């Protein structure tokens, strides 16, 4: 087996042995949907403000964007910087394995957890609150994949340049919270116009918009796809180039 395949398999096993990671990566999005849907009054009822649509239908794509941000900026980044701090990376640096093999394996494992978690969240929403199948399933999958790629690349970049968990936590927080804001986590689907124009050019904002567009049957807009692809390419390449084992 190649190093990338073996690393991905080993990292998957390690991921599953860490209860906190499994909770946040896989179970948390579904739990959040169920809690919000049951606890917030009117969350699952048709709303006059939304022309008769239900808040949960508008929030679900934003939840998916939130899941992307959490798994990449929290789980993925801390896994790698934790490895750096403990000397796991230093040990690996003595072997012929390339940094990109490790980064790829970490991305594969976390993206896998993210897909499982998001699928579970959707299933929970569909069963508990009768959320419909997205109107453009292919568009949703495309937006989700590109959004994961873009945010994963940003996370690998942060992990590549952070010397320790303290710096990493700082940088990740500076990226994570504004990203969530631009994704509409606090404003909801209806965002002030000026904020939305900035959000279009952030990777998570673009992912969130693309998911929302596809959810109601449109195709993601070219600007959003371009922002995600460019982010993935730029930060992914920079991460592989700037990665330090120590």
């Amino acid at each position, binding site marked *: *087996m*190649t*190093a990338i*395949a*073996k*690393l991905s398999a*080993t990292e998957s*096993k*390690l991921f599953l*042995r*860490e209860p906190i990671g499994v909770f946040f990566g896989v179970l948390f999005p579904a739990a959040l949907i169920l809690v919000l849907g049951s606890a917030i009054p009117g969350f699952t009822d048709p709303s006059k403000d939304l022309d008769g649509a239900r808040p949960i239908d508008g929030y679900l794509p934003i939840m998916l964007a939130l899941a992307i941000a959490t798994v990449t900026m929290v789980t993925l980044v801390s896994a790698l910087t934790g*490895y750096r701090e*403990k*000397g*796991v990376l*230093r*040990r*690996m*640096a*003595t*072997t*012929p*394995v*390339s940094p990109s093999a490790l980064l790829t394996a970490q991305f594969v494992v976390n993206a896998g957890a993210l897909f499982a978690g998001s699928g579970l969240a959707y299933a929970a929403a569909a069963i508990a609150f009768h959320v419909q199948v997205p109107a453009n399933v292919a568009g949703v999958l495309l937006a989700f994949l590109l959004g994961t790629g873009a945010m994963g690349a940003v996370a690998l970049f942060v992990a590549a340049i952070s010397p320790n968990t303290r710096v990493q936590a700082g940088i990740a927080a500076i990226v994570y919270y504004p990203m969530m804001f631009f994704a509409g986590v606090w404003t909801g689907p209806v965002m002030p116009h000026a904020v939305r124009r900035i959000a279009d050019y952030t990777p998570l904002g673009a992912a969130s918009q693309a998911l929302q567009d596809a959810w109601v049957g449109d195709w993601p807009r070219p600007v959003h796809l371009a922002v995600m692809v460019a982010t993935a390419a730029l930060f992914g390449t920079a991460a592989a180039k700037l990665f330090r084992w120590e």
Partner: protein
Amino acid sequence: MAVIEIANLMKRYGELTAVADVSFSVEDGEIFGIVGPNGAGKTTTVECVEGMRAPDSGTVRVLGLDPRRERAAVRRYLGIQLQSSELPARLKVWEALDLYSSFYPEPADWKRVMAEVGLEDKRNTAFGKLSGGQKQRLSIALALVGNPRVAVFDELTTGLDPQSRRDTWALIRSIRDRGVTIILVSHFMDEAERLCDRLAVLRAGRLAALDTPAGIVANASVPGVDRPTLEDAVLALTNDPR
């Protein structure tokens, strides 16, 4: 044939000169020891051999290759045990060996390496649950799993009990008998004396002596001591006023 050649190696960290001028070569099939007090430049020297650090001047060749410029090629032939390094706490012994063997183009059979270091009965134990000695043995096994031609051990038996130290020495000899060249960085003179064919004694980033352990003892001038040990001889060499 020289497997490792170091010529006029110099390495600074800012103002501090870790290695001032070191030259030696290591022959095929040798157990070569590097000794000297803390800060003498032992670890920096082997880190330059491993390609972990770039020399400021001088040359280092491993099997004729430059460990910095031909890093990937050198890594294939070099097995490295680090002074301090960790594995993920939940990674099991067999998984670590299986994983690390996948990093090399022509690895050793990891099950055989696991048996050789005596970790067969710990194969399903997580790294975090191993004792210090067992971690050390796993670390040695990981240095061997790539089927290296040269193995570098830094502080091989630090923290081991006397029986484990002797077991480890026997292991190192058996590795050498298979044709692996070994570089050993050590603080323990009994270890150096029993294991090493030749020793480089470093003092303040320079070579103070390069000889067999017996040769170093024979040539030492240790005033006031009748039958000096290797430790007496090395201390005399490294405490010498410059």
